[in-house]
């Protein structure tokens, strides 16, 4: 159960919420962070915890048991935890989101009858569209969250959002879905061809569109949209619900970022947008952070001493202690002493960005740069240990 603490912590957040959306720039470790948070929740808080990932690294996917299975929740076996000596108080489940399958499911769900369903699924435009249609990855991730939450099977669902061109796309996806169905053009395209031709307002557009795209292609698009329109009610209702869920008090957003310039910049932008939209910003996780000890002046002094003393007998002592070659040891000690300032410079820069991020969020959690990739439950537990000390 949730621990009572003076300061908010990540575990308290995970205990208080039912849905967590993990957002941030590409390449910052969203997937591993989402999986580690789920692992922490399953082991420390308990209950049925599900992490929905989009595109995990292969070994991590295998470790979670979702390497092959898509769009279906799979339980991470207790044996995987037992191997590393942990007995989780709850259950950890994982699912991998498959955009294509997800769309097919949506169509099946919303189609008014079998004829419309089959016609859409077989439509060549649909086949081509599902990958790019109205930020479809983003919408689908939101939609999946809604669907999973509605099943009532989960105490906590953590969703790793897809890589977007713009992190805001995730937040805007439901609105865009509604706008798509509400737009005048969709209505115009789906009225019968002849009456459309004589609508004065649309004539200039039609003339140009016809010349550029060809009327045949426009017809194909129109036919597809007519099919789609049959599902409008279902889609719009759903998008409304998904939108409500994003602002629900049971939902929180966790922004993940490294402390490099571009991702931090995006994290700040995203955090401000969340606040502006009255959505719950639960935490910012600064990932792959260098230890603050790298910035200490005493560390720089130690580094200089190390380089200076290496050739002055220190290498000989160390080499003897370790029973290794003295020359190689001297080279190593000199090099790491001389190179330390490079790392220190980066650490200092990171610390500034970390302070800026901390100003934006009620909770800033730092996960250190690790000396290995995150490949299995053991690694996830280790990362979880840093997120939830």
């Amino acid at each position, binding site marked *: 159960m949730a621990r009572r603490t003076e300061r908010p912590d990540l575990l308290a957040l995970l205990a208080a919420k039912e849905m967590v959306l993990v957002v941030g720039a*590409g*390449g910052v470790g969203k997937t591993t962070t989402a999986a580690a948070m789920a692992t922490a929740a399953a082991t420390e808080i308990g209950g049925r915890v599900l992490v929905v990932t989009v595109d995990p*690294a*292969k070994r991590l996917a295998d470790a979670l048991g979702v390497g092959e299975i898509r769009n279906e929740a799979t339980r991470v076996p207790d044996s995987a935890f037992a191997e590393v000596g942990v007995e989780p108080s709850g259950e950890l489940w994982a699912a991998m989101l498959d955009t294509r399958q997800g769309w097919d499911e949506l169509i099946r769900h919303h189609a008014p009858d079998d004829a419309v369903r089959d016609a859409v699924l077989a439509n*060549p*435009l649909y086949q081509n*569209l599902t990958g*790019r249609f*109205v930020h479809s990855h983003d919408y689908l991730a939101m939609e999946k969250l809604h669907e999973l939450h509605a099943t009532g099977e989960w105490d906590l669902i953590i969703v790793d959002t897809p890589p977007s*061109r*713009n992190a805001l796309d995730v937040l805007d996806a439901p609105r865009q879905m509604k706008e*798509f169905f509400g737009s005048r*053009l*969709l209505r115009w395209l789906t009225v019968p061809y002849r009456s459309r031709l004589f609508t004065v307002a649309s004539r*200039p*557009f039609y003339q140009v*569109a*016809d*010349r*550029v*795209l*060809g*009327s*045949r*292609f*426009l017809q*194909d*698009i129109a036919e597809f949209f007519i099919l789609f329109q049959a599902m409008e009610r279902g889609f719009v209702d759903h998008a409304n619900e998904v939108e409500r869920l994003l602002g629900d008090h049971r939902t929180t957003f966790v922004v993940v970022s*490294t402390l490099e*310039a*571009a*991702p931090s910049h*995006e994290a700040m932008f995203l955090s401000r947008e969340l606040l502006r939209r009255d959505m719950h910003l639960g935490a910012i996780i600064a990932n792959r952070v*260098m*230890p603050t*000890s*790298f910035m200490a002046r*005493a*560390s720089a002094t*130690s580094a200089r*001493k*190390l380089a200076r*003393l290496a050739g002055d007998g*220190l290498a000989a*002592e*160390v080499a003897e*202690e*370790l029973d*290794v*070659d003295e020359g*190689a040891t001297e080279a*190593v000690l000199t*090099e*790491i*002493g001389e*190179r330390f300032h490079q790392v220190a*410079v*980066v650490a200092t820069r990171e610390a500034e960005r970390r302070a800026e991020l901390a100003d934006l969020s009620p909770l800033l959690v730092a996960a250190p*740069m690790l000396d290995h*990739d995150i490949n299995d439950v053991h690694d996830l537990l280790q990362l979880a240990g840093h997120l939830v000390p």
Partner: protein
Amino acid sequence: MISGAGPSILERRLVFVTGKGGVGKTSVAAALAHLSASRGRRTLVCEMDAKGSLADAFDAPPLAFAEREVEPNLFAMAMNTEDALREYLRLFVKVPFLGKIGPLARTFDFVADAAPGVKEILTIGKFCWEAKEHNYDLIVVDAEATGHIVAQIGAPLVIRDMVQVGLVRDQTDWMLEVLHDPTMTGVAVVTTPEEMPVTETLGLLDRLAAETGVEATTLIANRVLPALFDRRQSAIVDRLGDAEDLLVDAAGKNVRAVLDAAHITEARRWIGSGHLSRLREHTDLPMLMVPELFTRATGPRVVSLVAEALAEELE
């Protein structure tokens, strides 16, 4: 094996720079453009998303569709579908009512959102046009990330298959001519020595060849940690913790931070070189190495450092 042929990346006329999000695509694109321009070649660099990071790279005010000279010989622009449509209509359709393009562009945008390839072909068409007309010696596109680039570069093929008649259909021919000519067009894939960027790069190389007919030209490994130690020395770094007392006595207790830094850097380097070997096993495309810069600077300083590294690699 995917093998590369043809001229080096700076000798082509149209180069798309892609890679997984977060690998430093924009810095590399800016650096390639900077390098080309500094050698006296008239160069255009274009940002595809509206994030403004390309403008930051040159310390320039926000970029617009109309290109602006940010350095001698170097012109920068930001892609924008509405402006691309405006230009397209002006060039090819000779539409008279340009002033009223707003509503038209919005509706067009809508069709483009839904119809596969339409939006992409407007933007890709702009680049192909500039290349075909030889308005620049080199056009560098800070392109979409690996997840979206295939849809972008592959748009002319999709349109050719899906659209039977119309102006757009007719124009796919000359666009494909530009895109499929390896002396004209190339793709540079940027990666970092990390698992997911390398995995996405491998996936992209296969998809590019199969779905777009545009060839990958060069791999650019960014933020590569320098190889400071050989295996024997590296093993010593690993074991220095065992001599910690000696080291602390000599250099103070903060020597632990120094050892930590060395340990993390060295471990990451070995993991990274493992990931890069996976790439090398799969392809013999040239791989340019850009070192981890360890710099506190951003913007033009980074661009010039990356450009220097690329220049050395290209020699």
